[in-house]
């Protein structure tokens, strides 16, 4: 195909990506948006297959077939609870591909001009870090690698040495174009990705995945610089921006900074019990008590946390909501940005349980409503409803935005025990006079509440 025609068609593909992303601004148009973006990708692939430099199709077809098979199986088989791992893995594959593109370009012409060598070095470096970092994140989320921060004395110094070494070999590659330097850059970057993600705790993985998502975009852009392709540069930049926005939303929701997440090994220190935790008493309730409180309320706001998904209780929760609605109770869901294991994860889990998306509310939209709500029902959430994040400046999570469930008339908490959450912080909410605790596994407990409501 004529190079100019191909160039225009790539531009059409990039425009389709932007239209596709624009349609993600509403759940009603989002599916069509994703299909538009996929059509853009298909166009870009077809245009490329007719391209100039290609001499043999064997390798290409083999890669396309193997990749499509693996991708399709992964996408169809994945459980919605495992979505963060899958996205981490996909990030890794994308980053790895960008690094490999840079590698092949170097092997093709080690005597490339300096500007090409610089972009090859950057593409290899960012792509390889994304690859290994993503798979460590995958391992942590999947439970293959310890979710706890992995730390040892002198770690920062060692990490710094590895980082400097990586930059050093990248400089060597950029100035000489030596294939040996290429292998050194790939090796050092892979190592850097591993040692940088290992010390980060499981609770911080939403930030890490978002950031690696951004990096996978930047790596694609860099590969675009290498092969002089605007389509890659534009698409990569879109994804880079998207990942950064999500990263920013996540760190704000956790009241952290990106630097703090990446370098602080949060959660490594032993959990300290809250002051006087033993003296306070929580009010334990039966499923029947809970059923009566919910059934005779006018308005209920449900606050789901990740414990809900762990217990696989989304469906029974939706049954409970339907039962309440059929009795005329107004039911809404309040979703904290870090309710799941990645941005928007809880919304997907609830959508899977057939919860209509117009019942799901964000933190800012729902917080003013708790004041005039009869019952807040907290299921499997803890730190995101901890009032000390708002009221107690000495709390380790002070300043983290929370859902103001303690402002509702009544609070019901479904939880296995009084044990503290991820951050190991005691929650005063559990000891309020207006709070009743239903100590149970979420699925079993909610099931009993549903039966009790049916008998009222």
């Amino acid at each position, binding site marked *: 195909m004529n190079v100019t025609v191909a160039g225009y068609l790539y531009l059409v593909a990039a425009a389709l990506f932007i239209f596709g992303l624009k349609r993600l601004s509403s759940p009603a148009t989002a599916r069509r948006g*994703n299909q538009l973006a996929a059509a853009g990708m298909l166009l870009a692939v077809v245009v490329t297959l007719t391209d100039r430099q290609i001499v043999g199709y064997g390798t290409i077809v083999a890669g396309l077939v193997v*990749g499509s098979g693996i991708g399709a199986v992964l996408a169809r088989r994945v459980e919605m609870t495992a979505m963060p791992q899958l996205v981490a893995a996909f990030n890794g*594959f994308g980053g790895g591909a960008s690094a490999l593109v840079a590698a092949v370009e170097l092997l*093709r012409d080690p005597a490339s001009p300096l500007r090409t060598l610089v972009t090859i070095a950057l593409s290899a470096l960012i792509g390889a870090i994304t690859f290994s970092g993503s798979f460590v994140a995958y391992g942590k989320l999947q439970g293959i690698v310890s979710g706890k921060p992995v730390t040892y004395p002198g770690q920062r110094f060692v990490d710094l040495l590895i980082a400097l070494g990586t930059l050093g070999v990248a400089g060597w590659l950029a100035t000489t174009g030596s294939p040996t330097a290429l292998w050194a850059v790939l090796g050092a970057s892979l190592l850097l990705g591993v040692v940088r993600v290992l010390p980060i705790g499981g609770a911080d993985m939403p930030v890490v995945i978002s950031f690696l998502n951004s990096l996978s975009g930047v790596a694609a852009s860099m590969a675009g610089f290498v092969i002089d392709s605007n389509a890659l540069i534009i698409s990569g930049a879109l994804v880079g921006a998207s990942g950064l926005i999500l990263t920013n939303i996540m760190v704000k929701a956790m009241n952290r900074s990106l630097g703090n997440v990446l370098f602080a090994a949060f959660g490594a220190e032993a959990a300290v019990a809250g002051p006087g935790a033993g003296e306070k008493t929580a009010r334990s309730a039966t499923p029947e008590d809970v059923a009566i409180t919910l059934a005779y309320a006018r308005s209920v706001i449900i606050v789901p946390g990740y414990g809900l998904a762990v217990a696989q209780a989304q469906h029974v929760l939706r049954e409970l909501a339907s039962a309440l609605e059929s009795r005329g109770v107004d039911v809404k869901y309040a979703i904290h940005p870090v309710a799941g294991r990645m941005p928007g994860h809880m919304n997907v889990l609830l959508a899977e349980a057939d919860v209509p998306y117009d019942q799901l509310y*964000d933190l800012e939209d729902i917080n003013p409503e708790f004041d005039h709500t009869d019952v807040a029902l907290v299921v499997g959430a803890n730190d995101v409803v901890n009032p000390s994040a708002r009221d107690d400046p000495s709390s380790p999570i002070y300043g983290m935005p929370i859902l103001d469930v303690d402002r509702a008339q009544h609070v019901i908490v479904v939880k296995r025990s009084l044990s503290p959450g991820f951050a190991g912080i005691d929650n005063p909410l559990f000891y309020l006079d207006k709070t009743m605790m239903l100590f149970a596994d979420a699925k079993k407990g909610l099931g009993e509440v549903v039966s009790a409501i049916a008998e009222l």
Partner: protein
Amino acid sequence: MAELLIPITVFVLASFVGFEVITKVPPTLHTPLMSGSNAISGITIIGAIIAAGEDVGAVAAVLGFLAVTFATINVVGGFLVTDRMLEMFKKDRP
């Protein structure tokens, strides 16, 4: 580095477009946004196809094959799983 001026311009402007468009995506769609944009970053498949189509020796051929495979997993898996998720988002009460 004058030759880099145009690609860098494209990169910077596209980043601004990205920020504008993505900021309007509601939090409820952030997971599909991430998997969908992730699939878009698989655009590196273009580079992978070109790399795998060249005749640069055995090592490059293996790397090219891996590049196409990785990028295709990213693209096909990413778009499919995003579609699967978006299909579940319904407004109507069941």
